[in-house]
Each structure stands twice: as structure tokens, then as C-alpha cells.
């Protein structure tokens, strides 16, 4: 039964856009423009949208104190790749690189406004919460429909490739157009990451569910099959949730409780511990604060709230977790304790006597 409820509330693979949503992409029609008009469109794009929006003194007004009940906005990132790093005790760990590419807040709704928008299934989940819409990776506006490009006029931004709604509390509201950086989080924080897993297409039972299959040599027609799926007269055929062949991958998954090891402030790259971030390289994923109780943020070291704002003091290029060995540092050397030294000396003496 658990599988039944899961499918009701969490869509497994696809989300069809609602019919009242605006059509996103323009028709695949080749606009046969003259060269002057092409240049005009590029000029228009450069004048209005090339420089990012600057919001001076906005954060001073909206500076608020973080409380353990408050929820911040998240980030949209791309998975760039995986490479190893080493800890100070010589242990090798793998890290995934997540790039945060010009993220902006596009719109915000109060808790009152958001309550009217929430559809009936999710009403319980988002009770008393506000919401922020975040976009990532600005693009040329001629690719998109006029209605979609109009969503970004209020924020003064070009249309974005990716949009998401993030539930937040009322104290974490942000004005539209504020930029979000990778330093929204800090190294040492714990994070949840949401994404779509790698797609494998329609797969058999051996690859999808790790069934053993049959022996290929001494049998006929018994190689990669599931075997019997139902049993007996009274039991009545296969049960619900029986593992069968079907579409594999491209499922929605969250990794809970992942540690941030390093942040590159120049390229806005977050290094996250472990290679298991869902999706291929180049796919989008979403980063939020953890929901796991043991790893949650505490009042002793509150995060930048509502977000990080670049101040007068420039940050260094790389921010590291205290356990991580920096590549600039010298080679790792271990120190012997006195007990170990004594053991070594006595061992050498015994060896001499034997010889």
C-alpha cells in the first residue's frame, strides 16, 4: 500500500504542465530577418539585459534575525562533474561539483497570497508558508514566447531557462531581482539535493531490479527472465508492487544530509561530499537546507539570512571545510607517538638478536 500512496502525492517521473500555465518556448519557426534587424535585436538585448540588476541598500532594510523556525530559499545548480579531494588524515574522498549559474529571485508571494494558489492536495503541506520563484541561467529572449518573457519584466531580467517555486517563511521574503550566490551556503553546512536520476529507458528485470536470471548454457529460453510472478489459486495472481520490467531511471530523488566541503566564490561552484548526486553531468539539481534534525542549522552559527549579499570585504577565491587538505598546502606528514617509537626500537633489537 505504501507504493500506492507514494504515487498519489509524489509524481514519479513526469509532470505535465498545467493548462493555465503560459506556453514556454516559441514556435520552431525560422524568422527570416534582414541583417539590420538581427543587429537591432542583439542591441536591444544588450542595452536592457546584459548588465545584471543591482539592488543597493535593499539588504540593510530587510536584514532580519534567523530563528530555527525560519526557512530560507534554495539554489538551482548544474552538476558539472566529479573529482577527488583528500582530507588532512590522508583519506581520499570524492566530491561532486555543482555550479550555481546566475540565479535570481523573480517573484515572491506572501503567505496569504500563496495560500490561495496552493492546490487542494498540497494545502496541508504548505500551511502558513510563503513562496519565492527562482530562476537560473538567463537566455536570449527570442527563443521564448512573449508571455513567458513578460514574467521577467518586473525583475528586469532576461528570461531564464529554469524556474522553480520554493516554499519559505514570511521573514525570508526577498525583493524580485536579487541575485543569489553559491555563498548562500557555507562549507561545513549540511544540505538536501533534489534531482532527476539518470534515464535508462525500458529495461528488463535483471538490470532494473537485480534479479539473478537463469543459466544461459544448460537451459532453453531461461536467460534474463523474472520467472513466476503469481502463485496459487487462492492468492490470486501477482500482488501490487511486484517488481517487473519497465521504464528505469529519470525518477525524482532527494539526497538528504550531504556535507559541503568547499566553495569556489569566483566561479560559484559548490563541492559536495560523495558522488551520488542524482542525474548525469550537466543536469539541473536543486539545493536546500537539510530537514534532518541532527544536521540542522543551529542558533550558535546562524547562516546568512535571508541570503548572502556581497559586502565591501572581498571573499577569498576558495572557502574550505576545516578537515579538507588544501592543494596549496605542503605534503601530509604523520608524527610518531612515544609509545610507537619504543615499540619500533624493541622490535629492531629482537630482529638483531635473531639474526
Amino acid at each position: 500500500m505504501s507504493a500506492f500512496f507514494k504515487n498519489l502525492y509524489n509524481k514519479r517521473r513526469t509532470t505535465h504542465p498545467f493548462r493555465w500555465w503560459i506556453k514556454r518556448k516559441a514556435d520552431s519557426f525560422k524568422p527570416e530577418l534582414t541583417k539590420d534587424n538581427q543587429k537591432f535585436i542583439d542591441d536591444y538585448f544588450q542595452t536592457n539585459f546584459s548588465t545584471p540588476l543591482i539592488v543597493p541598500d535593499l539588504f540593510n532594510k530587510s536584514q532580519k534575525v534567523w530563528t530555527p523556525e525560519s526557512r530560507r530559499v534554495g539554489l538551482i545548480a548544474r552538476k558539472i562533474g566529479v573529482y577527488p579531494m583528500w582530507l588532512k588524515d590522508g583519506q581520499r574522498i570524492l566530491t561532486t561539483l555543482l555550479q550555481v549559474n546566475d540565479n535570481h529571485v523573480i517573484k515572491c508571494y506572501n503567505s496569504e497570497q500563496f495560500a490561495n494558489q496552493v492546490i487542494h492536495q498540497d494545502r496541508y503541506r504548505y500551511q502558513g508558508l510563503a513562496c519565492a520563484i527562482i530562476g537560473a541561467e538567463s537566455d536570449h529572449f527570442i527563443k521564448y514566447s512573449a508571455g513567458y518573457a513578460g514574467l521577467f519584466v518586473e525583475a528586469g531580467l532576461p528570461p531564464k531557462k529554469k524556474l522553480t517555486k520554493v516554499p519559505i517563511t514570511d521573514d525570508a521574503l526577498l525583493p524580485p531581482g536579487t541575485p543569489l550566490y553559491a555563498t548562500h551556503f557555507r562549507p561545513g553546512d549540511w544540505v538536501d539535493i533534489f534531482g532527476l536520476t539518470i534515464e535508462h529507458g525500458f529495461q528488463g528485470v535483471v538490470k532494473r531490479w537485480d534479479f539473478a536470471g537463469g543459466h544461459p548454457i544448460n537451459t532453453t529460453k531461461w536467460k534474463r527472465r523474472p520467472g513466476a510472478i503469481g502463485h496459487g489459486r487462492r492468492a490470486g495472481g501477482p500482488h501490487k508492487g511486484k517488481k517487473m520490467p519497465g521504464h528505469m531511471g529519470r525518477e525524482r530523488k532527494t539526497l538528504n544530509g550531504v556535507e559541503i566541503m568547499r566553495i569556489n566564490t569566483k566561479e560559484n561552484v559548490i563541492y559536495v561530499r560523495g558522488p551520488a548526486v542524482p542525474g548525469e553531468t550537466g543536469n539541473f539539481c536543486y539545493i536546500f537546507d537539510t530537514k534532518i534534525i541532527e544536521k540542522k542549522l543551529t542558533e550558535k552559527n546562524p547562516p546568512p539570512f535571508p541570503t548572502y549579499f556581497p559586502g565591501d570585504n572581498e571573499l577569498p577565491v576558495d572557502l574550505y571545510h576545516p578537515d579538507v587538505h588544501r592543494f596549496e598546502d605542503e605534503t601530509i606528514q604523520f608524527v610518531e607517538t612515544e609509545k610507537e617509537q619504543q615499540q619500533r626500537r624493541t622490535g629492531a633489537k629482537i630482529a638483531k638478536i635473531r639474526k
Partner: protein
Amino acid sequence: MVRHYNNALPRPSTANKKLIPILPPEVKVKRGPISLNKVWYRGSSGRLIVIGQHITQLFKFERITLDYHHALEVQGYTERLITEAMRNGDRHIPTMELADFYIHEKQLVHKLFKVLVPRYIDYTDSFTKLWRLSPALSREDIITGKVRHADKGCLELKGNPLPPIEPPKYISRKSYLTNVLLDAAKKDFYASKQFSDNQTSKKKVETSAWLENFNSSLELISIYRNQISDIKHI
């Protein structure tokens, strides 16, 4: 899913073995090879023989029609063969073996080194051009019993003496509705302060009246697009 690793050892990487120029963007290179199975030429070794047949014909007639998925494979092989011939010349034994393998008619080997290599020696683009044709059922195909539903493609060597495939571009597009509307918006834009301000100092510009005009023109374009699509269906 648990990945079962084989006991087989990892192979040494061949990434540093040779220096090969990058293929131009007109050539479409797939992730893996496409199977070109024929009755007599099967498997990975037979595939190369089929490609060799196409390449000899291409060098002979300079323009051929064939199945589109065949043409996709053949294009890359011809490009690489010509670049190898250009780089190493006709006194290099491995390249001569290559030419001997791919070109079935031996007088065409001379054509490769004496005609095609000097023709393409200053090219930075691709040497071939690929056209996608609609699935054509011609009379000859029906007579020979070669009716297929695969898309046809036309592959040609650039700089050939045959008449061009593409119709000449003499139509002026100034009278199109999109261009007329944009011409009107253009004058206002270049006369306005925004453009001149942006040239001197780049600052954030507030939304103005003419931007709304532009948005409305975009809507008009979208309407116009829909009209055209309707006309096409009729």
C-alpha cells in the same frame, strides 16, 4: 541498480597516441557507430566495406543519393580520409593502405591525391555537404524492387562541376511582416536616450513605454507565425 564490474582489466587510453584535427560542425558524429547491415556484408568488418562502396562512388560522380543514415556515417569517413591524404601525402605507406582499402576502383586513388587534395588545401570548413531529402519513391526504385521507407540523403563533394542543388537566393525578405514591424521599432530605439546612455555608461534602465510597444510587436509576430503555420497545413 548495482553495477557488476567485470574482471577484465582497464585498457590503456589511446587519447595521446595521434594528433587528429577536429571535425567541423557540419559533420554529425554520433556517439557510436551505426549498423549498416546488408545481406552479404555483415558485422563490424562488413560495415567498412559498405562504406568503401559509397566512398568510391562519391569520388567518381561527386554527388550521390543514398539512405540518410548511411550518408551520416559516410560523411565522417570521407572527411577523415581526405585530411589523412592531405597531411601525409602519397608517399606515406599507412595512408596509401587506407586509400587502397576504401577506394575500390584504383584509378580513383590518383584522383584523391592529384585532384581532391589540391582542391581542399585551403579549406577550413567541411569538404562535403549533406542534404536531407524527403522519402522519395522513384520509378527506378520500384522497378528494381528497392522500395524503402528510409529517408533519402544527398551527399556531395564541395567545389564540384555539377549544377547546384540549392535554389538561388534572390528573394528579398524586407517585405515580410516581421521585418516591417522591426524596422519601425528600430528607428525609435536608436533615436531614444536609452541606447545612447548605454553606449556611454552601462546602467540599469527602467521600463518605458516603447518597451511595451516592443512587447506588443512580439505578440504580433507570434500571431503571424500561427497564421503561417495554418497556411502550410492547407
